[in-house]
């Protein structure tokens, strides 16, 4: 394998006191200004010494340290990343470190799912008085990284990438394992058909969001129906893209009030949209239906969820081992493999990604007006469908949906290459449930998970 030239390399090659030719590990530290940076200064004023492998970047607060910075540091060739700030309770800005800690908890689980070696990411609380702790942390981290050697799998992301053109093969992996029943037609004289027609004719709603059969392939397709005559075309498919994604369109948002045929997935997604102030619950009429397409009544989205929960068996929370089939079982199978296998699995998947962003388009909650992946000032990650770019995209997507994803599987349904993206989201859903007892979409009044914190959030992995 050809040596890949990475930016951090030059200075450390020169810096290496070890055997010629050996490469010293490169460490990047993100630290807060008030505690750890001051602690590192104190180490200097006290004339303590530590290995020169670390490059420190100062930010005002650990709250400012975006997980994208951490991913970026790895992609720039860091062998280890240290993030450090004030001890809990000591934050100069009251609670930035608590919110950072919540992100680290999620990030660690995400990286673990994808097979990143968690020893490469060190988190610590180091106060302005703890110069000695800074020295010890850097010394130990450098020693450990010297033992582990360079983080080659990460650094070979670009070199090892061989694009693989693949089409979804329908192999069962999580969502695809769900039964594929035929779409149910909405008859005009059925309770749902009558309710829809009545609401549309009486002007209670100006349009109905639902599905109809696509003319050519016969697959269900989202539809916005304004003409009562066209209601006959509606079908209720057991599996189809989440209708709530249509609220990303300004044209759809302007139709008020609007009716939505609401399965559990739509109800959950609309609840998140309400929580994030993207949807006014008073202007949406949810026509709740159960999994078999039976009409359950009219309500606002939170009310519709209650009706569906009452009618259907409640979905168990994403506990490990809570289910032996479907998504959670697929996740369990993945996590049972060794870390290297998980990494290999995801790298194989990443090679299939052509960055068409169908996943982004199909997701009801991937609703940024401009995606971070498309930004060019700064350009955070490669826009091309290459190793580092695809790696970053999958992680950023899953992280931005952590605490928001409702598990509808639309992303995975939409992927033309059959990448089991839903597994990453499932890992995040499980993490969110395990650590914070939180299920997104259940309570539109809840604080956004990543903006919130508890002083007793789990922290044993932080030095």
């Amino acid at each position, binding site marked *: 394998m050809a040596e890949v030239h990475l930016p951090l390399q030059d200075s450390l090659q*020169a810096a290496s*006191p070890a055997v010629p030719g050996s490469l010293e590990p490169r460490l990047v530290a993100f630290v807060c200004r008030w505690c750890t940076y001051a602690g590192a200064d104190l180490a200097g004023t006290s004339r303590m010494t530590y290995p020169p492998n670390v490059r420190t970047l100062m930010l005002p607060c650990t709250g400012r340290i975006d997980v994208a910075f951490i991913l970026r540091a790895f992609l720039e060739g860091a062998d280890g990343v240290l993030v450090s700030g004030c001890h809990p309770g000591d934050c100069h800005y009251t609670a930035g470190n608590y919110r950072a800690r919540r992100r680290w908890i999620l990030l660690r689980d995400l990286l673990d799912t994808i097979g990143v070696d968690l020893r490469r990411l060190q988190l610590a609380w180091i106060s302005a008085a703890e110069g000695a702790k800074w020295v010890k942390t850097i010394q130990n981290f450098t020693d450990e990284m010297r033992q582990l050697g360079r983080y080659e799998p990460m650094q070979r992301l670009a070199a090892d990438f061989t694009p693989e053109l693949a089409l979804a093969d329908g192999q069962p992996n999580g969502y695809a394992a769900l039964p594929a029943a035929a779409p149910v037609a909405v008859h005009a004289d059925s309770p749902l058909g009558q309710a829809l027609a009545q609401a549309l004719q009486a002007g209670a709603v100006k349009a109905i969001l639902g599905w109809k059969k696509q003319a050519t392939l016969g697959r269900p397709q989202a539809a916005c129906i304004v003409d009562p005559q066209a209601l006959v075309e509606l079908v209720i498919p057991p599996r189809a893209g989440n209708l709530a994604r249509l609220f990303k369109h300004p044209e759809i948002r302007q139709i008020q009030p609007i009716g939505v045929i609401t399965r559990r997935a739509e109800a959950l997604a609309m609840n998140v949209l309400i929580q994030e102030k993207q949807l006014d619950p008073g202007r949406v009429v949810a026509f709740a239906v159960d999994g078999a397409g039976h009409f359950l009544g009219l309500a606002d989205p939170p009310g519709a969820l209650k009706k569906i929960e009452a009618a259907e068996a409640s979905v168990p929370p994403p506990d490990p081992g809570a289910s032996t089939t479907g998504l959670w079982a697929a996740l369990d199978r993945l996590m049972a493999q060794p870390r290297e296998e998980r990494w290999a699995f995801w790298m194989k998947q990443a090679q299939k990604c052509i960055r068409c962003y169908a996943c982004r388009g199909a997701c009801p909650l991937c609703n940024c007006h401009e995606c971070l992946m498309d930004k060019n000032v700064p350009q955070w990650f490669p826009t091309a469908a290459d190793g580092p770019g695809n790696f970053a995209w999958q992680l950023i997507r899953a992280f931005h949906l952590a605490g928001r994803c409702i598990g509808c599987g639309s992303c995975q349904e939409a992927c033309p290459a059959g990448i089991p993206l839903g597994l990453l989201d499932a890992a995040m859903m499980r993490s969110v449930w395990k650590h914070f007892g939180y299920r997104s979409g259940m309570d539109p009044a809840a604080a956004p998970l990543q903006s919130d914190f508890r002083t007793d959030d789990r922290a044993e992995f932080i030095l």
Partner: protein
Amino acid sequence: MSKIGVFICHCGENIGKTVDCPAVAAAARRIPGVAYAVDYRYTCSEPGQAQIRAAIKQYSLTGLIVGACSPRMHERTFRKVAAAAGLNPYLCEIANLREQCSWVHADRSAATAKAIAIIRSAVARVQCNTPLLPIHVPLTRRALVIGGGIAGIQAALDIADGGVEVILLERASSLGGHMAQLSETFPTLDCSQCILTPRMVEAASHPKIRLETYSELERVDGYVGNFQVTIRRKARYVDWSKCTGCGTCWQKCPQKKIAAEFEEGLGRRTAISIPSPQAVPNKPVIDRANCLKFKTGKCGICQKLCPTQAVNFEQKDEFFTEAVGTIVVATGFQTLGKEYFELYAGGDHPDVITGLQFERLASASGPTGGEIRRPSDGQEPRTVVFVQCAGSREPATGRAYCSKICCMYTAKHAMLYRHKVHGGRAFVLCMDVRTPGKGYDEFYRRAVEQDGVNYLRSRAARIYPENGQLVVEAADTLNGGERLELRADLVVLASAAIPQSDVRTLAQKLGIGYDADGWLSEAHPKLRPVETNTAGIFLAGAAQGPKDIPDTVGQASAAAAKVLGLLSNQDLQRDPIVARVRRMPPPEYSTCLGCFACAAACPYQAIEKEEIKDRHGEWIKTIARVNAGLCQGCGTCVSVCRSKSIDLDGFTDDQMCSALEALGG
């Protein structure tokens, strides 16, 4: 193309010894975008600064990197240098080559390589810097002083004398605080009332001071220069605008047996009362819990007899909001009650009293008219034992600190006792005697040498009553802890000064810090002793920690000077390191979705809503906007923003990514 100037400081030998500074400067010269790079022995010296100023002009530099000590040391210095040469100060960045490079690494080549990497990263970062202008925030030229003790009175008077309007808030019905309760004051033994009462009257009659007694702080909104404070004026059941303070009501009130708080329980008061004859304002309030009218519905004698019909049983709490620019917190302290000391005669013996109770006994206006009498039987005590450090300096019981005032007031108490009771014996049990202060040690020596007070270095272990006296068991700490037994008629505990019981609630309302004991935290223990970490809020007096009167008055005047200094500006200038929601053309566009994840994460409520409308005034969307006056620049909002629509000036995503990318590359 940027033209960056790089200045590598040797810091004498401090950097130069470990880092090859000329080599670093030479490497810097090769970085694209660097127009000028040089090393110099002491860049922070005047010639060093002159060199920077000259280079900025000569090479029309667009950015400045100083590779020197930590930015925590000289960032401000070098930013001023940049400004002096016409370069926006925020285009200057410091590369830390000393504390985090030369001082911590021994290997010269490794340290030099790391220094080059640091410079490279700093150059990349500064190329993304944008000129920032100080933020101007309007200012309300008005102050709120919380607490009407000597600290609050002094601060209010000083601020008002400076020409600024003051609202003086006090939760009791009268000004005065603890100082009004004291008999004489150390080290001069002048009467506390005699020096305090004129200040109270002065504060009440000052044209620039508005007195709000019997009122409490309800909530605080806003930020430095622009606080909105909501005050609760508690129901007094007396219309003070009609009341003349004639005293008919409290003379005729049938409820006469209520323990008087002002007398520390040693005297009695009525249900409608003023705390002391010198009260300012001299107007009564009705104590609802003890008033017969409120308890039984019958009575109302005060209402019938009041010559101005001022009594009003229907009065309710009133709430009102005032705009102020700054706040002085002078809420004082309290002392540990004797019930805390169970080993000292069960904590409820009438002849075991606290220092504050002794003050009332010794006060000419007190319940005994200034004669020292035992509370139990009114006899003159022949032997008094004073127990110092009662509750202080005891890490085991949670208070490791020294209460600071007790050594001096105990010396004073013993002295006053010896003056008032001829032939009486005074013993002081102490760990040691701490008398730093002008004239303080002389005062203590006087107590020992002239007034014959017996000081015993010992710790009181137990006190119990026996035959109408109190037996004080102590350990003689000069004699190997040998048991000491004293028979006393009266025991006075120099009980610890402790924070007000509701100080934490107050601190949370104000958004200021407090330490583990509950004393309010100053911004820096040495250099910013009267400021808090919240801009515009200052501390005065014992709320910050135990203090005697001179220190309290000194700190109050210092806080007043800070207030006047702040309010002497036309408006406020703030460091422009604040978050900003990105806006871009077409006019008023933003990628912000308005999900307000930022608002949920902001510790300062600095995120507001803003409606974007088209040119016809039609609503397009509601997005976030940062109130630069409230934002403290932590950047937590930036990390939770998925669409990266919000950024932190001075630490933008672009700057951080560039710095990261260039680390050693």
